[in-house]
């Protein structure tokens, strides 16, 4: 039956919507739109125009679908697609956007935000110290300064309070504060050296053993020259809008950079950099190998068990239930149990192998055995699932097909490859694909079992492990505590992963369609 023929059956609703229904729908749409618009405006006000535009586009799309009579079948999907737009599509595009920027530690702010942030850095101009100072301390341990200027004006400076005008010689005590002299003054010096006294917007600090002065802003941005000036040294740091740094003539870079578009830089880095290129190739190979062998091993064992049980076995129901247990145990718990059992010193598998064979692999530090261990644990996690779906699919294959094949003289071999396998693949082909892509992106088992370890020698910041797959490798780049977090680079790898897996899925999709056609012809 073709799509158009099916369409005639039920495309148009036979009853037109009632007026009250329409009114309720209009009111709901108006409310939703108003809410989305309000949120979008607020979010754009915070500078996040990307999210704001997403919200508005989503709201408009939903209104269109719900108001255009021709779009009525899609209305059923509006709640789902609103969430998908906001929580799947938006993050995807945002990631794409970040992949073309230098967003990373040190480049987290926009140019203006970076300039403002550096404006908080203060310095004490040398030689301009204008006060002689004496130090005071109260019962609570708070320090204060008695400042005397060259013009003999005196002030009492308490941290975060306005200066108090005072007069006369330095007293022994003032307002609960005691004057510290001689050795005490000397000892206090180390503590008060970095402190700021007086009003927080214009604080006073210790410049030398005798002199104090007013702090000044270290970094001032000069719009006309598009440069940052270091007030302390007078150095000019030109804003380089291609790298997102403020760069001095001698090549020095100001402490904070800013966020700029860098074109394809992150992508070329993936394929060019010799440091990154080496381990990345191995990570790639392992990612594919891990996903492939995980699916093949789990499918084979699952199918084998399903076939045996389907042929009749004493206590089938109980056996099936028992084998299902790994599938039913929460994955993280299962992995952590294995992690304990594979512990190189005390784990039950290691100690027993040592007792029986006198030798046990070091699962955590031998790259090859670590991979074996991960595949084994993943087989444990997923073969029951394949047993489950294979046995269901096998039962669904009608017996008459086999009878017909027998009449035609087919042998067991032919029946398996020409009937069972195609029909089985039609049924569970999509699930095999899903399983492959799931394992391609399987972060949990890699991270929870060995944390990607053992580390590859010669890689650092972030260190790459022998069992790291693309996703955990990228995660380390984006979120690792050591080294700089490079979201731009991590996002670029994420995009590459997405392209690979997306392509695979499309190819497999074609394959599934072909299988469906085979299935229909049987």
């Amino acid at each position, binding site marked *: 039956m073709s799509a158009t023929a099916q369409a005639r059956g039920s495309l148009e609703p036979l009853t037109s919507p009632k007026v009250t229904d329409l009114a309720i729908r209009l009111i709901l749409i108006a409310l939703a739109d108003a809410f989305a618009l309000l949120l979008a405006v607020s979010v754009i006000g915070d500078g996040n125009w990307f*999210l704001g535009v997403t919200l508005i586009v989503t709201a408009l799309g939903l209104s269109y679908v719900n108001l255009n009579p021709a779009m009525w079948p899609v209305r059923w999907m509006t709640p789902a697609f609103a969430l998908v737009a906001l929580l799947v599509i938006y993050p995807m595009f945002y990631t794409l956007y970040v992949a073309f920027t230098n967003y990373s530690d040190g480049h987290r702010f926009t140019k203006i935000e970076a300039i403002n942030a550096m404006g908080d850095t203060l310095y004490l101009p040398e030689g301009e110290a204008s006060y002689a100072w004496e130090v005071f301390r109260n019962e609570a341990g708070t320090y204060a300064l008695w400042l005397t200027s060259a013009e003999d004006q005196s002030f009492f400076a308490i941290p975060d309070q306005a200066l108090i005008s005072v007069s006369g010689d330095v007293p022994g005590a003032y307002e609960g504060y005691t004057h510290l002299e001689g050795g005490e003054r000397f000892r206090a010096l180390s503590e008060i050296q970095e402190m700021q006294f007086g009003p927080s917007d214009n604080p006073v600090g210790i410049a030398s053993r005798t002199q104090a002065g007013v702090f000044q802003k270290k970094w001032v941005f000069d719009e006309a020259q598009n440069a940052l000036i270091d007030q302390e040294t007078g150095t000019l740091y030109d804003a380089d809008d291609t790298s997102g740094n403020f760069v001095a003539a001698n090549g020095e870079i100001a402490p904070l950079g800013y966020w700029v578009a860098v074109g394809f830089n992150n992508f070329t880095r993936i394929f060019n950099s010799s440091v990154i290129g080496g381990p990345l190739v191995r990570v790639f190979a392992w990612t594919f190998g891990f996903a492939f062998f995980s699916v093949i091993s789990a499918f084979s064992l699952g199918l084998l068990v399903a076939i045996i049980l389907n042929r*009749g076995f004493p206590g089938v129901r109980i056996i099936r239930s028992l084998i299902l247990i790994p599938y039913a145990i929460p994955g993280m718990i299962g992995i952590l149990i294995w992690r*304990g059992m594979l512990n190189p010193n005390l784990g039950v598998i290691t100690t027993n192998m040592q007792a029986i064979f006198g030798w046990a692999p070091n699962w955590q530090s031998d790259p090859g055995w670590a991979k074996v261990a991960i595949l084994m644990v993943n087989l444990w996690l997923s073969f029951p699932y394949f047993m489950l779906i294979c046995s269901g699919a096998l039962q669904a294959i009608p017996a008459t097909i086999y009878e017909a094949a027998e009449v035609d003289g087919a042998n067991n071999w032919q029946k398996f490859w020409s009937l069972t396998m195609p029909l089985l693949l039609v049924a569970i082909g999509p699930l095999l694909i899903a399983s492959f892509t799931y394992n391609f992106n399987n972060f949990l088992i890699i991270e929870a079992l060995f944390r990607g370890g053992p580390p590859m020698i010669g890689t650092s910041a972030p260190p790459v492990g022998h069992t790291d797959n693309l996703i955990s490798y990228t995660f380390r780049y984006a979120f690792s505590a050591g080294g700089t977090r490079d979201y731009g680079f991590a996002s670029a790898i994420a995009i590459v992963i997405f392209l690979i897996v997306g392509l695979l899925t499309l190819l497999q999709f074609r394959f599934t369609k072909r299988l469906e056609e085979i299935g229909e012809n049987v």
Partner: protein
Amino acid sequence: MSDMITASRERVADTSTPKSRRGLSWVRIVEIAVIVFAVAFALFPAIWIVSAAINPSGSMVSQSFIPQNVRSIDDLLANFRRLFNDPTIPFWRWVGNSLFISATTTILTVTMTALSAYSFSRFRFRGRRTLLVVTLLIQVFPNILAMVALYLLLLQVGRYIPLLSLNTHGGLILVYLGGAMGVNTWLMKGFFDSIPREIDESAMVDGATHWQAFIHLILPLVRPIIAVVSILAFVGTLNEFLLARIILSDRENWTLMVGLFNFVDAEFTNDWGVFAAGSLIAATPVVILYLSLQRYIVGGLTVGAVKG
């Protein structure tokens, strides 16, 4: 592995004859060996964790298969007492958090997927196939890598809707809902396709709307797949760990999985017993749920897929 496949080839053809009446041939011996291996492989970790949970001394080094030095039932529960009484482990709070988050996510997911799947199954409209493919494709984008974006999203939205901010259950549920579409929609659609269209069509000839046909006729018929998707969504959310770990920062707000993972970071071999006790409590209800609803899971997963 190739041995197993060869072995299977010879036997598959017999799937149509449910009972084998042969004697103890070598094929039968191989079959028994495979099943014994599969059962032992599947069960060993589960049995080992039960043994660890009731081992009175609680550390990995002292564990034996049958717990030693057991003088009373009380000794068997030593790890559980530590788990419940340690003030740094708000165990029941974590359980409550997990149940709340999973239940809410499941109800919303099932509602949304059922609506979408019905539409995909029954209506023919422009772009239907594209949307179906897109539904599956977006699932492929690794959620973990969108973490920066999701994190900033919750940060932003949370300023105006505190219920959905970072470190809240609402925010976590929102993120879960975004990822719940793909496979579930396909599973449901497959099952919906297996319900004859004549059922809704005849109802609509009698004057019912699509909505009425869906609620009163189709929903009761697709209960098995609703059950399957519910279980998958519930258990999937219950087991989810990474997003929960990044979004929920306060110990009080943690889910059970985040809490249990925390044992590993500390002295795992010493806390092995307490970890085992917590894991046992967390896993047992899920295992019972799965095993008792096995029929639905098997039926739903395959019938939906078989019909395509």
